[in-house]
């Protein structure tokens, strides 16, 4: 690995290293610029220099490299606690979950990553399918309900999130809320529903619908939704903001975004005009999905990687997620986010996330409905 990779943000060696390097390069550059083609030689020289700094091995002892498809704001503080507790340094690389999955697939068995923390079970499934994840020990897998982990043992859920209908309390009376997500295709919701069809969570929800309610009913639902003047947006946050502002009446999103917006406003989630409606009675609109983690085969024997997975499933991290990211813990004995109904109290649809790998069919359905490009 190249030496320029920095370690944790706190001790960040690049803070003082880069200015010096910059100055050195600048001096070189000035001299060489005057000698024309020699600049090309400089590039070559620096290339070689960088190559020489390569130690050729995987992460140093007592450290691990994490690819995080989850946000740095949420994960970095957790990593600091992990390092403080265990003495294991984490080199974290942050990105978009889907693009990071593609990156892992390109890297294959030469990936510098030890652990992949993803926003979405589908991305974990895509990496697992290529055989890049090692099988996790039974102790890790058994810590969470069977529906929240890979049947092959390649990944395990870390937090749970529910699909919800977010609604503006001034625009929609509680008594008028739909009992089922299927009602959103009715004329009374025409032009009032915010949808994010390009989002992985929406896609998982549609897949689950095909599993539970059948493909035909799903096709009808999507067609009905598309015909009902849906307000299509680019992100769950965009839908939530509009519902809160009253420019949209309702929207289909994940529940925890309300926590993020409330934090930015500096208020409790229940002070927002945007409220959460969990579809009752096991309706598929209340699908519970997970964000999860997998260990790359290259790190199969790294105790650090396993320690990190254990930490994520331990009470400290689970409590952190419930408090900071407004998500549901997946292990027993940890309280859920305050102000929300407990996961156990909700009648969620009975869906095994392992059954949600029929993505190609789902995408064809969504695209055929005209909801996405």
């Amino acid at each position, binding site marked *: 690995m190249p030496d320029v990779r*920095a370690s944790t943000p706190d001790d960040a060696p*690049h803070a003082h290293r880069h200015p010096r390097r910059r100055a050195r390069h600048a001096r070189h550059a000035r001299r060489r610029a005057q000698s*024309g083609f020699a600049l090309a030689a400089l*590039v070559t020289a620096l290339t070689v220099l*960088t190559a020489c700094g390569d130690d050729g091995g995987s992460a140093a002892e007592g450290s691990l490299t994490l690819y995080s498809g989850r946000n740095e704001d949420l994960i970095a503080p957790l990593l600091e606690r992990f390092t403080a507790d265990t003495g294991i340094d984490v080199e974290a690389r*942050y990105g978009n979950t889907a693009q990071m999955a593609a*990156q892992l697939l390109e890297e294959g068995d030469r990936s510098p990553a030890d652990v992949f923390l993803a926003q979405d079970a589908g991305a974990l499934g895509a990496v697992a399918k290529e055989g890049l994840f090692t099988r996790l020990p039974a102790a890790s897998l058994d810590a969470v309900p069977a529906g929240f982990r890979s049947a092959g043992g390649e990944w395990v859920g870390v937090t749970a999130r529910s699909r919800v209908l977010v609604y503006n309390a001034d625009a929609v009376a509680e008594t008028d809320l739909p009992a089922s997500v299927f009602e959103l295709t009715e004329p009374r919701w025409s032009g009032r529903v915010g949808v994010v069809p390009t989002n992985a969570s929406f896609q998982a929800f549609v897949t689950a619908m095909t599993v539970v309610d059948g493909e035909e009913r799903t096709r009808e639902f999507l067609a009905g939704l598309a015909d009902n003047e849906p307000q299509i947006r680019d992100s769950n946050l965009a839908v939530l903001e509009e519902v809160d502002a009253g420019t949209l009446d309702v929207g289909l999103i994940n529940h925890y975004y309300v926590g993020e917006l409330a934090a930015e406003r500096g208020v409790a989630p229940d002070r927002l005009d945007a409220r959460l409606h969990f579809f009752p009675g096991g309706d598929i609109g209340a699908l519970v999905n997970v964000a999860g983690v997998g260990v790359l085969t290259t790190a199969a024997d790294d105790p650090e990687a396993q320690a990190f997975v254990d930490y994520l499933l331990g009470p400290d991290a689970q409590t952190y997620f419930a408090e900071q990211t407004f998500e549901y813990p997946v292990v027993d004995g940890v309280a859920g986010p305050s102000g929300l109904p407990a996961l156990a109290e909700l009648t969620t649809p009975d869906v095994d996330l392992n059954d949600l790998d029929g993505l190609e069919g789902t*995408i064809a359905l969504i695209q055929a409905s005209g909801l996405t490009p």
Partner: protein
Amino acid sequence: MSRALPLSRLSPPRRPLLSLAALGAAAVTAIPLCYLLVRALTPGWAGWAETVLTTRVAELTARSLALAAVVTAACVVLGVGSGFAVTRTDLPARRAFAVLAALPLAVPTYIAAFTWVSTFRGMEGFWPAALVLTLCCYPYVFLPVTAALVGADPAQEEVSASLGRGPLRTGVAVTLGQIRPAIGAGALLVALYVLSDFGAVSILRTDTFTRAVFVTFDLGFDRTGAVLLSTALVLLTVVVLSAESVTRTRHARYTRLGSGARRPHPRLRLGRARLPVAAAMAGLCALSLGLPAVNLARRLAAGVSEPGTLGEVARATGATLWLAGTGAALTTVLALPVGLLAVRSPGRLAALLERLTYLSHALPGVVIGLSLVFFGINVAYPLYQSTWLLALGYAALFMPLAVAGIAAAAAQAPAVLEEVASSLGRRPLGVLRTVTLPLMIPGVASGAALVFIACVKELPATLLLRPTGMDTLATELWTQASVAAYAAATPYAALLLVVSAGPAWLLARRTGVLAESGAQVSR
């Protein structure tokens, strides 16, 4: 241009060293194309046809081309209009306007689009996307046109006038002819940028090719599908490039021979139109710069999230300067032989290599990023996740921005001076060092500044290729904005604009418009 000289009957001089260097440079931009080829071969011809030869792709093609055409046309109108206003009229505060007209380059389309949708709710679709892209892209036309208007030989217009043509006919026949190459170069950059843009089209929900490519990654984590769509985008770029070639005209001398003090151009008195024109310029600046600024300030005031320590902000700024600086330096060095070859040794090879650099310019950043991941993992593993691989990615993305400036500078540096140096016994490298480069420094610097700004704004390839643990202003902005921490995001957005403002000012200055005296005013 050397082609126009009487010597042009002779075949252009062969320059093996230069050709070799240009070949090497063009190879960098060919990395993404090779990657696409390798990945597209996996599903085979049938798989390709199944994904690409569909009505959906036909629609995407039509919409992408339409958007590129509309935005390019609008940018030409705005760019030429404002360029003319600041160079050839008695517009008040024209120097200030000249700088302000260059600054939108510093505004990333994702920031611009975000401010528009949050200011005007429900704004989405083709025309809003065209509006936002136009406001962000017109400096690509404004800058070269302004430089051409300042640098054009006033004698040609005087000859035209002395032959009885009125100001309007002179303007159309002579002035327009003089700035035509500049318009063409700027328009091409705009058109290709529009094809590759993701920020505006995703936020404003216009289904173009690039949006479809990004969405394909998200939907089902479908790498192969995204790659197949990108191959179609390459074909689309070839179409745009061919269209541009057709409009290029041979002939014509655009620069003055000889040097000496340049006479300023006579200025058109705007008279009663002076204030309306100034108001129009001010309105353009308000829409392209003021609206984002006001929106950012409002977000900052409304939120409670904090951007982290001063150290973190400073570190992100430092990383941005370092990465964009490295990217701009490498890109410019690689662009130098390509641009020089195109002018000094024009021919099939030179044209091919120059065009090759444009091909990857229209590809989405995420595809460039993945192709460099592929290259790093399989070919240059020691460089993987180092600054240098990211710099190569920037070079693959942005080389045309530098090539255009370098080629223009080379065209204006009289080849005869190099020939004299050669005839006096200087070796080729010596000629380059002592004659060509010094003459071209302004053009090279402009190219580097354009690339620098593009690198500062770039997000998807940066996310995939940056050294682990290194945060830039763009990645920090993305991090904060994706958890609704808008107040925390604002300082990064503001710094992003500030960091790009310097090079944008440099670009405005390089056009020469700031140095021109406003003394002479015609009737």
